[in-house]
Every structure is written in C-alpha cells, then in structure tokens.
C-alpha cells in the first residue's frame, strides 16, 4: 500500500468517525422533535450524503455537528414545505453554543432500531444507518449485500415503525432486560460479521468491528450499570487487542495458538480485564457476554497457548452452557477439555455433537485425531472442513495443513 492510498483511507476513516459521532445524535433529537422517525431519518441521511460529498473537498468543518444540523434543517424546511406542522417545529429549532443540553436521545434511537417487532436483518441495517450514520452503500459493502436489498430492508423497517406504532422510547424497567438482550444480540452480530470476515475481501469496506465497539461503548456510557453491556464491551476490546497478531502481513489468518503474543495490545487487555473485574465485583451471576469475555481474558493473560489456564476456561464454559446450551459452545469447550482430560475424552465429547455441516467441527476433530496419532482420519476430517468453509482465510489455513 503506498502513502497516497494510506492518506485516502485515513481521511475516509476520519470522515466516518466524525459522521458517526454526530449523525445519531442529530437523528435522535430530530425524531423527538418531529415525532416521525422516518422523516427525521431521511433528513439526517440527506445531510450525511452531502457531507460525504463535500467534506473530502472542502475539509471537515470545525463544528461538524452544527454543519450537519444546518444542512438537515435547511433540507427539512425545503422538503417538508407542505407539512406545516414539521415546518413550524423545524423553524423553532436552533443550534447554539453553551446552551442547556438536549438530552442524548440515542438510547431511545437504539431501542427503536432494535425493536423485537423488526426482523433481525432489518434491526442490523437500521442500527448501522440511523445510530452509526452509515449510508446504504456503506452498509451493503460491509454486509456483502446488494445495495438495493439493503435499501429495501431499511425502507420497509421504517414504514413498519410508523405504521405498526413501534414507540420511540426507552423500555420500562420490567421490559428492559429482554429488550437490552435484543440490542446486544444485534451488536454482537455486527461484531461477528466484522471479526470473522476475511481481510482481503473487505479491505476497503467499513470495519464493522469498530462500529460494534463504538456502539457498545455508547451503550455502556448511557447504561453504565448494566453488567452485560460492560461484558460485551470487554469481550470486543479483548478480541480487538489481538488484531495485530491475527493475520500475517500477506493477509493469512493466524490461529490463536500460533499468534505472536508480543503483538497483542497489553494496555487494551489490561483495561478490558479491569472493566470485567469491576463489573464482576458489583454483580453476581455473570451473564453470557461476561463469561465469554472472561474466557477471552484467560487467553489474553496466558504467556503461551500451552500455559493457558484451561481448567478455569473449562469452568467458564460450563457456566456458559448452563445459561445458553449450544453445540457450538460445546465444541469450543472441547478444546479446553482436551488439555485438561486429554484428546481421547475431548474427541468422544465432540463426536456426540450434531454439527456435521460446521467446518470448525471437522477441523477440531482433526486436531484431536492428530493428537492421538490417527493421522489418516485427521486428514479426512480436515478435507471435510475445507469442503465446508467459505471463508478464504480459513480455507488457506486448512489447505496448508492438508499439504503437510
């Protein structure tokens, strides 16, 4: 990559960051004001599109929030000419310095975008667009979806919010746990989408992991006493801390056991672990995100793969399985089990799982078979894994193993 491309990328990143910091806030305030989710969102999207065209040429304004606000307001007065009600409200709206603060309405915005009456993929697209200020094109590129499909998904979701009377409100206390779970699922999905996708294919598209972390940090700031929000934030940060070691310079995936641990961001690990510990002290009975973060923390603190505290990890997986039984979690647990009880026990455990179409199932079996000296069977299992995987980085890894 040459210097010019680098500069271009960093300007783009900077643009994306600025838009993300302000677009959701503006959308939140406008929905409150107009009482019309769809109309407010359209205004903000318009302003964002104009900003993305003009800022690269004119430079990012000193006060991007005021800039976006002015454009959205002008567009609003223009577009909504016929709707006297909105026009009057918009005309009243002012943007001033050092004035009493409009509440940060982004929490309401998040809960509306992640309402359980919306389909999961609509929740994901809507959250990216409305809360993070992504354009439809950016969302499509990041999710490897067609732009027209994403646009339609968003239009339908917005129509449903209006027509079905989905409220713009923070859920009541008795509804909050269930609704928060829904929000965290959406963010976790974004994180996985970004984290597991290959680097090569999406090198120039939006880093969804960054958006997932930003969203979780925002949520943590707005709901500081929710332990699972803190848990998800720690989980994402612990994974991100290992990013520099996850790929070779050529873009090949490096497994956790083979990573150069000196490349890990120790400051980020220490901070995330501290957040997790603080949360655990204040709340008993950790939820699934805290447990997953605790497992990630065990890996992050281990000097080598072999010296990992596998017994502790096994206990954490058992707790996780009690909360959320899942064959995939059992599969991950089996790796810890193989270190504590040996590969024979672990193999017997995974052979009970109905995961025949899951590539990692066969790759894990292959590892245990190799540990047991059953190389021919291991080879067959690796081949099966390679047949099933669609991820180019994982495929490279399996091919290399098969060639050995």
């Amino acid at each position, binding site marked *: 990559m040459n210097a010019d491309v680098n500069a271009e990328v960093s300007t783009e990143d900077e643009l994306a960051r600025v838009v993300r910091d302000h677009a959701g806030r503006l959308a939140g305030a406008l929905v409150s004001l107009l009482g019309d989710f769809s109309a407010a969102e359209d205004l903000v999207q318009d302003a964002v599109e104009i900003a993305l065209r003009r800022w690269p040429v004119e430079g990012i304004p000193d006060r991007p929030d005021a800039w976006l606000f002015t454009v959205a307001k002008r567009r609003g007065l223009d577009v909504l000419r016929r709707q006297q009600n909105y026009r009057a409200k918009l005309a009243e709206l002012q943007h001033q310095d050092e004035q*009493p603060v409009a509440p940060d309405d982004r929490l309401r915005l998040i809960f509306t975008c992640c309402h359980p009456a919306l389909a999961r993929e609509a929740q994901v697209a809507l959250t990216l667009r409305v809360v993070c200020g992504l354009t439809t094109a950016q969302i499509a590129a990041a999710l490897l979806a067609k732009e027209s499909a994403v646009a339609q998904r968003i239009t339908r979701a917005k129509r449903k919010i209006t027509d079905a009377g989905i*409220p713009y409100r923070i*859920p009541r206390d008795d509804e909050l746990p269930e609704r928060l779970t829904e929000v965290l699922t959406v963010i976790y999905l974004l994180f996985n989408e970004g984290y597991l996708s290959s680097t090569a294919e999406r090198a120039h598209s939006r880093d969804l992991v960054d958006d997932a972390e930003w969203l979780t940090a925002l949520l943590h700031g707005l709901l500081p006493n929710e332990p699972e929000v803190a848990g998800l934030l720690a989980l994402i940060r612990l994974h991100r801390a290992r990013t520099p070691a996850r790929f070779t310079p050529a873009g090949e995936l490096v497994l956790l056991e083979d990573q150069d641990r000196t490349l890990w961001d120790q400051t980020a690990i220490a901070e995330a672990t501290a957040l997790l510990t603080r949360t655990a002290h204040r709340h008993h009975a950790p939820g699934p995100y805290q447990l997953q973060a605790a497992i990630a923390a065990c890996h992050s603190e281990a000097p080598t793969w072999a010296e990992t505290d596998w017994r502790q990890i096994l206990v954490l997986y058992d707790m996780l399985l009690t909360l959320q039984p899942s064959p995939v979690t059992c599969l991950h647990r089996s790796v810890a089990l193989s270190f504590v009880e040996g590969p024979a026990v672990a193999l017997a455990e995974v052979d009970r799982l109905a995961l025949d179409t899951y590539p990692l199932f066969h790759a894990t079996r292959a590892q245990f078979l190799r540990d047991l000296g059953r190389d021919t069977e291991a080879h067959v299992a690796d081949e099966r894994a390679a047949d099933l995987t669609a991820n180019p980085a994982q495929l490279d890894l399996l091919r290399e193993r098969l060639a050995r």
Partner: protein
Amino acid sequence: MTRIVIRLKLSTGGKRVKYVLMFIETEEYLKELDAMTPGEREQAYQRVYQWFDDHRDKISDRGNKLQGAETATTVRLDGGVAMTTDGPFIEGKEVVSGFTEIDVADLDEALRMVKTWPACPVVEIRPVAEM
C-alpha cells in the same frame, strides 16, 4: 461542545393506535381443550373473561370468537368468475379463531397486553389502517 437546543415542548403523548388482535388456534391447543373436564374448561373461559375485564379500558371492540375453521367458506374473485370453496383461505394447522380491537398508545402497550393472554397459543397484532 455545541449542542442542539430544543425549545419546544415535546408532545408525543396523546396519539393512540388501533390494533386488531387475531387469536390463532393450533391443533395441539384444540386437543388440549378437548381433553379438559367441564370444570377445567369453565376455568379456562373464566380466565379469558378476566383478561377482557382487566383490559376493558383498552378494548375498543370486543370482537368475536369465530366458529371452527371447518365451517369456513372461501370465495375467490380474482379468476374472472367467483369461485366458492369449502374451508379457510389457507389450509393450515393454525387458524384464526377470533378477533378483538384494541386502542392503545403504541405497539409496546399492545405487546404487554398480549403477553398476558390466557388462551390460544398464537396472537397476531395488526395495526388498523387509517382511512
């Protein structure tokens, strides 16, 4: 730090939304109902009456319980000639068995109501179109 100042009073309250709740029966539910003693069935009805009573301020039209799907007749008008057939418009294991109209603040209020519904296992919530 610049902030957006909203000087208007936010008036999001007051608006109401009408929904029709469509109650849907499944084969298993009907079997359960059949297996009940008369006393148990009476209690089941009582729970339904109680639900209607608990939510009477939000129910704008109690609607009706419908006769079984085997009594349905469907007419199709889209083929040029009116076609009359026996049975519901979709043959399935789940059939609409009744409806009620409610008048509430938003979907969340409707959801809260429906989550306490004591009878058939599926309820569809549809906003009424404003004409």
